[in-house]
C-alpha cells in the first residue's frame, strides 16, 4: 500500500518543508522548470543564503533535487514526493467519505 511506503520521519519532513509559504512557492516554480538558486533568489525579498536554506529544507524532504550546471546548481522538483503526500490525504478523505455515508444512513432512519 502506497501510504505504508512513507515513514513517519519522511512524512514529517515533507509536511514541515511545505508548511512554509516561501518554500511552497519555490516548489511551485521549480515544478514548472528547473531554476538556479540565484534565479530563484530574484523572486524573494531575502538574501541568497536564505533562499539557499529554503532549498536545502526542500532537498532534505526529497521534494527537489539539484543538478550541477557549470558554476550553478539547478533545482528541479521531485513531484513523486508530493504525490505521496497527496496519497496520505486521499486515504484520510476515504475515512471522511465513509463518515458522511454513516451520517446519511443515520439521518435516513427516522
Amino acid at each position, binding site marked *: 500500500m502506497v501510504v505504508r511506503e512513507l515513514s513517519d520521519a519522511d*512524512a514529517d519532513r*515533507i509536511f514541515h518543508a*511545505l508548511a512554509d509559504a516561501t518554500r511552497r512557492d519555490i516548489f511551485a516554480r521549480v515544478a514548472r522548470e528547473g531554476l538556479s538558486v540565484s534565479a530563484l533568489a530574484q523572486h524573494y525579498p531575502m538574501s541568497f543564503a536564505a533562499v539557499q536554506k529554503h532549498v536545502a529544507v526542500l532537498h532534505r524532504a526529497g521534494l527537489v533535487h539539484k543538478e550541477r550546471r557549470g558554476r550553478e546548481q539547478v533545482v528541479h522538483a521531485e513531484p513523486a514526493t508530493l504525490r505521496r*503526500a497527496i496519497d496520505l490525504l486521499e486515504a484520510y478523505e476515504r475515512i471522511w467519505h*465513509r463518515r458522511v455515508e454513516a451520517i446519511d444512513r*443515520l439521518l435516513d432512519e427516522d
Partner: protein
Amino acid sequence: MPVVKSYRDAEALRLTVVAEFAAPVERVWRVWEDPRLLERWWGPPGWPATFERHEFVVGGRCAYYMTGPEGQRSHGWWRITAIEPPHRLEFDDGFADEEGRPLDSDRPIHGVVTLEPLAGGTRMTMVSTFADAEYMERVIAMGMEEGISQALGQIDDLLA
C-alpha cells in the same frame, strides 16, 4: 451519494469535504451535539466510538475511545474552540492516553464544520487541517487496518 466534492491541499495538509443531506440543519447539528448519535458515525467502520465525556460548549472537552476489531482501544479527545449552534463548530481532535489525557507530543487535527440550509436539506462543509504528519499516519492506519480485516473477512466468507 451525499458527498458532493472534496478538495485536497497537500501543501497546506488540509482536506475539505462537502456533503449534502436531505435533512434540516437542526437535525444534522444533532449528529454532532448528541454523543449517542455521534458515536454511531465518528469511528471508522470496524472502530466504533464511545464518548465518555462530551461538553458541547466553547472550551469544553470531549473524551472518547474507539474499539478496534481485536478489542484494542484507541483513545481520543476534542477541545471545542468555537460553537455557534446550529451552524458552526470548531474543535481540536487528538490522541489521548488510556485515562483520556491528551498526549504531550500531540499536535491535533483542527476541524471546522459549517452547516448551511439548502432547499430541502443541508450542506455540511468539513475542513480538517493536520499539524502533524505522524498523527495523520496514525489516523489513516486505523482506517486501513479496518479495511484489511474487512477484506480478510470477505475472503473467509468465500471460503466457508
